[in-house]
């Protein structure tokens, strides 16, 4: 028998499924309702949205779907929202999934976690719990969440979970409203709380295509400045680039629209039972109330994955695409066109390449690298 630490196990299983289409990781959004009103959020609805609540999957429907995804080979499951604990039956859904042998991550804002919930999670330990922090100062955190007192409740939950040694990770979105506190947050989380911390600055529009979250997005230069300020972060980018340097996609897959793990090794299910390629997808999806997960995986998602590009864009031959993160879904949200390059991401990728001293090869009509090795086109 091999007893593997998680990292080795994950590496081994991902090697095993390489080249095979197995839905090993998935996300279920149990609700989009949330008591917080974070301006940067891509999907939140008011906590008291009765119409949304009435359309959400029931406990029994969740159980049937969990049976089906487990049967199809799902091992890692994310339960996310909205705020997951707004659902009174969340722990029932969670426990059902645990008993099927799924490794479950919980995304929560922590607001509704009680000592009883924390005790329950000790008994039925999740694979991971992730909570977002938006400031060191309570005023900053509360300004981002739009709810006064959310910081105190947040810190109380962090205490509840850390006292119980639950596998907690904290994270943050860097916004124009909290950017001045990001290093303070890192210090607080890593040095004072002794927890893992990560942050991201890539904000997307809402899945209803509202561009409101972009109002608090940093400029491309600010995003890269955050990379540069942290030696560990810039080191990781360099390693990442070294690994994925060159054409990102194999030649025979150049004409495919999707190049991510969505629909190959992962999937997402929205609160209303629609199977999608990922949480950002804003299309109709496959209705799991009318068909099985297996059908949705083998028909709808397979067809989506085989979708071809309809035109050549500067992204196709871009060799720094690994540093960009653009995908058809965020292009759809930002440009209403899955193939149209997302300008913000393109700028970030080129600035990042410049910061790392990477020579960007010409790749079509790219205004950010008209002259090879130059950032002449960057603002």
């Amino acid at each position: 028998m091999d007893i593997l630490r998680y990292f080795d196990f994950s590496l081994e299983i991902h090697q095993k499924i390489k080249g095979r289409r197995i839905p090993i990781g998935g996300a279920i959004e149990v609700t989009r309702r949330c008591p917080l009103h974070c301006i940067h959020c891509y999907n939140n609805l008011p906590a008291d949205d009765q119409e949304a609540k009435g359309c959400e999957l029931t406990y029994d429907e969740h159980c049937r779907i969990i049976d089906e995804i487990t049967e199809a080979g799902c091992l890692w499951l994310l339960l996310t929202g909205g705020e997951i604990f707004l659902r009174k039956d969340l722990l029932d859904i969670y426990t059902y999934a645990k008993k099927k042998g799924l490794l479950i991550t919980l995304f929560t804002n922590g607001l509704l976690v009680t000592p009883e919930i924390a005790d329950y999670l000790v008994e039925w330990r999740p694979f991971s719990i992730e909570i977002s922090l938006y400031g060191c100062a309570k005023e900053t955190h509360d300004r981002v969440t739009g709810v006064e007192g959310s910081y105190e409740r947040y810190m109380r939950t962090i205490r509840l979970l850390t006292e119980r040694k639950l596998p907690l990770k904290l994270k943050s979105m860097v916004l124009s409203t909290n950017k001045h506190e990001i290093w303070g947050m890192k210090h607080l989380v890593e040095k004072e709380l002794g927890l893992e911390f990560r942050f991201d600055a890539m904000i997307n529009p809402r899945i209803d295509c509202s561009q409101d979250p972009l109002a608090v997005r940093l400029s491309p230069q600010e995003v890269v400045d955050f990379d540069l300020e942290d030696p560990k972060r810039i080191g990781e980018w360099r390693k990442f680039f070294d690994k994925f340097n060159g054409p990102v996609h194999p030649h025979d897959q150049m004409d495919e629209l999707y190049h991510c793990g969505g629909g190959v090794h992962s999937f997402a299910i929205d609160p209303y039972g629609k199977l999608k390629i990922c949480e950002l997808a804003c299309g109709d999806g496959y209705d799991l109330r009318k068909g099985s997960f297996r059908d949705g995986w083998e028909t709808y998602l397979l067809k989506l994955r085989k979708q071809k590009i309809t035109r050549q864009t500067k992204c196709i031959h871009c060799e720094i695409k690994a540093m960009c993160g653009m995908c058809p879904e965020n292009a759809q949200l930002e440009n209403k066109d899955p193939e149209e390059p997302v300008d913000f991401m393109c700028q970030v990728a080129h600035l990042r390449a410049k910061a790392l001293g990477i020579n960007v090869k010409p790749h079509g009509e790219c205004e950010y690298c008209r002259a090879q090795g130059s950032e002449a086109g960057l603002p």
Partner: protein
Amino acid sequence: MDILARCYAKDSNLITRDIAGETIIVPVRNNVGDLDSIYTLNEVGTLIWELIDGKNSVSRIAEVISNTYEVKLEEAERDALQFINSLEKAGMIRTIENKME
């Protein structure tokens, strides 16, 4: 009691998953195994794991291994005992008392 006559039962809080041909044992509750570890079984380990049902003795398990993989019974007994010991140490199985073959 003769060690080969012992029977073992799995902890009911362990779930066996077969993913991409890999047998994975997932502990689901806090009172079993090391929740930060993942247990994976090779082909022989998977067969032994399947045979651990509270009724099959170590000797019976070794017999099945010997027949399936055409190895000497003594060798199969040694391997089965070693594997079962590691499962017991990890808290994944327990002896069923006074069970004779």
